């Protein structure tokens, strides 16, 4: 009953006409952002944060808007996967496997509606799971001391690195780059600058928004220059859209199972939505057996990854809100948003800022319904927007990024730094070094160091203190396992190849 009372508070916060309007705007924007190739949820949310910030929205409104964008982008990613065989974002990769073949059979409309419904089921179940699980986890997290937090941050970097790259050393290096950048600036305990090289602009540290927008959005421009905008906006035909009741009924168990799998994958710190959709797809493929027709346009092959990735998107919010450790790239960006709004995620969030948490959960539920209503009848509008050519889209995105960062500080230095991060992002991605650990490192570096310092102060410099509790030891074991295991599993869990024309 506690949950219902809390939810009532949440809806009280989130259901005013103004926030509802923001939710609808956010869902619409988010779906577009997710659908456009080259603009994923991380990019989209990252570009919009500075603008939201300068608009002077209060914490609840900003959260409602950005979570709507977040969920919307998760919905939108499927549109370009199905129609163009280009995943709008990384988690939507698995949707191309069956979505594109189905579209080629002339059933693009069916595939879009089915995946929309699957997204809805996944996201709805995950939001309910979030409501049930998060408060419990928050209570457990109260017992975490500095040793546990340090191990937990390490776990996040290890599992994220394990999943994100084909080369553990590169993933770990990416995390080090991020952490190293986070150290720059005035040290809180001594009040003296660290690692600034005497540059006054660096005394405040490097703003994570500058890094995020540079790594995600500006880097994308270079990729488009390299490819000359190929692979975007091909003539897409979409016939009449009807609701394929038969397929929806036939895949209902698939959606439920995939939601469960995706939600659990999302909760794992650092794993995120890509793993969710991957595991959901592979599970359903093995349940269906070799005659399931996976990879040739099977409805189940569309429902599973979509339910899985949307459930994982919800699941990823659990560790982000309760522990302050994001479960994916986009939740890392959402964490950045919370930090900009001066909200510190963690166990105390649930007791001290109950209105924010439950307002957020209520707005997720609202966004989900809005998205279903928007995505089934209005899918044609989004398909039209997909036709925006890259040579208008990318300059537009770049200029919006510049204005966003410029409106934060009005300083040319941040803009130049952002271009630098764009160049860094291009080379890192070219060399198969994942960029999400860099972001996570910049975001969490300060907290991780704080935990380490407090642990060292408490124990008088005894490193064994870090392994002094069963929870901490458990995290260390999981961290090492999460880092090492993918090296051996990589041979077994091969990603299925995308459908070629």
């Amino acid at each position, binding site marked *: 009953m506690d949950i219902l009372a809390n939810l009532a508070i949440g809806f009280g916060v989130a259901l005013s006409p103004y926030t509802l309007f923001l939710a609808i705007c956010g869902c619409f924007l988010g779906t577009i952002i997710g659908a456009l190739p080259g603009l994923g949820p991380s990019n989209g949310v990252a570009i919009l944060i500075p*603008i939201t910030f*300068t*608009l002077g929205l209060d914490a609840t409104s900003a959260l409602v808007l950005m979570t709507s964008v977040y969920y919307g982008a998760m919905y939108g990613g499927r549109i370009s996967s199905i129609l163009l065989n280009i995943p709008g974002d990384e988690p939507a990769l698995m949707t191309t496997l069956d979505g594109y073949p189905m579209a080629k059979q002339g059933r693009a409309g069916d595939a879009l509606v089915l995946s929309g419904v699957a997204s809805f089921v996944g996201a709805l179940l995950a939001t309910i799971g979030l409501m049930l699980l998060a408060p419990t986890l928050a209570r457990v997290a109260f017992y975490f001391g500095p040793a546990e937090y340090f191990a937990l941050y390490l776990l996040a970097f290890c599992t994220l690195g394990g999943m994100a790259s*084909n*080369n553990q*050393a*590169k993933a770990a*290096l990416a995390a*080090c*780059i991020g*952490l*190293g950048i986070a*150290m720059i600036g005035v*040290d809180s*305990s*001594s*009040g*003296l*600058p*660290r*690692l600034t090289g005497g540059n006054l602009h660096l005394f405040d540290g490097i703003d994570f928004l500058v890094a995020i927008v540079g790594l995600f959005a500006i880097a994308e*421009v*270079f990729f488009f*220059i*390299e490819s*000359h*905008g190929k692979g975007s906006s091909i003539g897409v035909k979409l016939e009449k859209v009807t609701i394929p009741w038969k397929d929806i009924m036939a895949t209902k168990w698939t959606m439920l199972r995939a939601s469960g799998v995706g939600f659990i994958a999302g909760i794992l710190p650092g794993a995120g939505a890509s793993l969710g959709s991957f595991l959901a797809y592979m599970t359903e493929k093995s349940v269906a057996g070799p005659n399931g027709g996976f990879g040739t346009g099977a409805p189940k092959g569309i429902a599973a990854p979509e339910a899985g990735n949307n459930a994982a998107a919800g699941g990823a919010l659990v560790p982000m809100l309760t522990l302050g450790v994001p479960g994916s790239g986009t939740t890392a960006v959402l964490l950045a948003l919370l930090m900009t709004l001066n909200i510190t995620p963690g166990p105390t969030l649930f007791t001290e800022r109950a209105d924010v948490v439950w307002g957020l959960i209520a707005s997720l539920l609202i966004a989900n319904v809005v998205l279903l209503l928007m995505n089934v009848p209005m899918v044609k509008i989004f398909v039209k927007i997909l036709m925006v*050519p*890259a*040579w*208008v889209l*990318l*300059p*537009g995105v*770049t*200029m*919006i990024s*510049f*204005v966003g960062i*410029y*409106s934060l500080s*009005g300083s*040319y230095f941040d*803009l*130049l730094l*952002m*271009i630098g991060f*764009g*160049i860094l992002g*291009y*080379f890192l991605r*070219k*060399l*198969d070094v994942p960029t999400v650990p860099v972001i996570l490192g910049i975001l969490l570096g300060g907290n*991780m160091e704080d935990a*380490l*310092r407090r642990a*060292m*102060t408490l124990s008088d*410099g005894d490193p064994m203190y870090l392994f002094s509790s069963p929870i901490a030891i458990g995290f260390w074991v999981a961290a090492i396992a999460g880092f090492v295991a993918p090296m051996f599993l990589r041979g077994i869990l091969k990603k299925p190849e995308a459908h070629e024309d």
Partner: protein
Amino acid sequence: MPSDRIFGLICLITAVAYIAAATQIQTNLFSGEFLPKLFPLMIGGVAAICSLSIMFKPDPDPAWPAGGTWGAMAIAVFVLALYAVFLTPLGFLLPTAIAAGILSYQISPNPRPAILSGLGLSLGLFVLFKYALGLGNIVAYRIPTGEKLWDAFTILIPFVGH
């Protein structure tokens, strides 16, 4: 193969420099002698090990773009850098139109659509930011003195600018 070896080497040098810088971190009574250095040293150490591992176990080379594309990207970087420093002295409209137009041309080399998208984006985004979103520090245009322009430009020249 060579790409990863070069990348590893650059990272190794950076990591060693980072460690060296970390040992020089100033401390005082409040922070203690060792604590401000501890975490940066750990990061540098892990990064150095990773760099060595990348150098000795490199992945296959990625497909690097051809020569002309590098030029296009270098121009894009230069244009963006100019945009960054001229946004304040010149205001929003002119730099945005030029930068967006050039970027558009780099992505798809057709002059007419590029000019149109530069102009359209400049005006459209200005209206969006200024009137729909009400962002404060966007100014339509400024007429700068030559001195101010030169000041802005020198930011980009190492050791001369601010």
